[in-house]
């Protein structure tokens, strides 16, 4: 069963930005795109355990702050080495200005 969790308010995330969200001892990254769409991926880079929310978000791409591996945060696709494994993604919705993610 899908477990919808309220993560933050939309306004907590800068446009073209990301924040870290920890839940049940797991860590996620929640992104706000340039078009105000909201996305959620696993929080750590697949190359090394680095929090992606510290990385630069440009358009729909997040870049790992350590080794510059890059992902499309909408699909989780690894776009640039050294990251070669895709990120897991999670569905999101915005309800009354709150961001909810399905972590099932």
């Amino acid at each position: 069963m899908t477990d919808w969790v309220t993560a933050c308010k939309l306004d907590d995330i800068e446009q073209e930005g990301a924040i870290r969200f920890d839940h049940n001892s797991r860590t996620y990254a929640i992104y706000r795109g340039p078009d105000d769409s909201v996305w959620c991926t696993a929080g750590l880079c697949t190359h090394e355990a680095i929090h992606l929310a510290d990385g630069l978000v440009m358009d729909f791409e997040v870049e790992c702050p350590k080794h510059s591996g890059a992902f499309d945060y909408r699909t989780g696709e690894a776009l640039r080495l050294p990251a070669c494994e895709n990120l897991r993604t999670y569905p999101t919705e915005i309800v009354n200005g709150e961001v909810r993610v399905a972590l099932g």
Partner: protein
Amino acid sequence: MNGMVIIGAGECGTRAAFALREAGWSGPVTLIGTEPGVPYERPPLSKPRDGIVLRKPICPPEAFGNAGIHYLADCTARSLDPVTKTVTLENGEVLPYHRLLLATGATPRRLICRGGDRALNLRSHADAEAIFARALPGHPVAIIGAGLIGMELASVLIRNGAPVHVIDTAPAPLTRAVPSHFAAQLHQRHQAEGVRFHLGQGVAEIGADGVALADGTFVPADLTVAAIGVVPETGLAKAAGLATGNGILTDAELRSSAPDIFAAGDCAAAVQPDGSHLRQESWQNARTQAETAARNMLGESQPYAALPWFWSDQYDLGLQVAGQPRPEYHMVRRPLPGGELAFYLNAGQLVAAAGLGAGNSTAREVKLAEMLILAGARPDPALLADSAINLKSLLKSARAA
């Protein structure tokens, strides 16, 4: 058909092997490495977790087979002949090449003093294991060299409970590539953690129980590590008559002085627009030069133009430097939550940037600064200094200009 041969299976050589495939080369690729086992990443070597030195493979072992890369581990190239276009291995085997890449890296500079052989070095996984196996809580360690490796090592060892002494002939730590005010902050942090510094001091002798300094001071140590820099591995190139200096000299497209032989990574000194040669020793340089060299080995003519970039982790502090900050540049400082940025302007143009702060807290801004530099931006120093101004907006206006 003769294939591509790469000598050196560190970050650079390994990356080049895969980059050749990505760029469309379907002929043979042979990667020759002197160390046993699968090629591994070096950055984790100075950052063990719970005393365990991670041997993180650069790629999964099966990736070589999948990409049709012939990887020869534990194998040393004895000589190369640019006329017959062959490499001779230690076992006598002769490998002909179509194009050759020298990615031979660098080796630690040896300490020249009495007892110098007692000092361990940190370059390979085996080196790291030897150091951390001997670094025990309560047993003093002397680190000779207050550069990035020496300082990273000091931060790990003191947290492991070893008394740590850092010795350097320079009057301050991190004088080479780190902005001086960040170097001073890191120095203070090390002192606050209990690291003892002996600066402006030469080493007279390394004994079984410590290090005698030139002024007569004795630094007790059960373990001595020399971290006084590296020298490029140019032996093969020099013996084959290639032009060498501080590294294997290359043109802007990473070609050596011999036809069909390229050089990249720590061993390569690439010509700069002002005619000088620049040799870099960073993870990023190893990878990006590998990619440029691979494309040029396949007939392209791309000059290597990546901006130098490196990072260093000490305690919970992360340092990142993009470009080459120089004291003569105009420096603009910007405070950040948990850290600080420094921008460097040369005649109004942004040419370098650095950040120091908790964890990766400055990484995003350093990356944006790097993009501003590559865009040729001439930002208003007042805007750079103002934390309320988003660097992304400066980037958008720079790109629109």
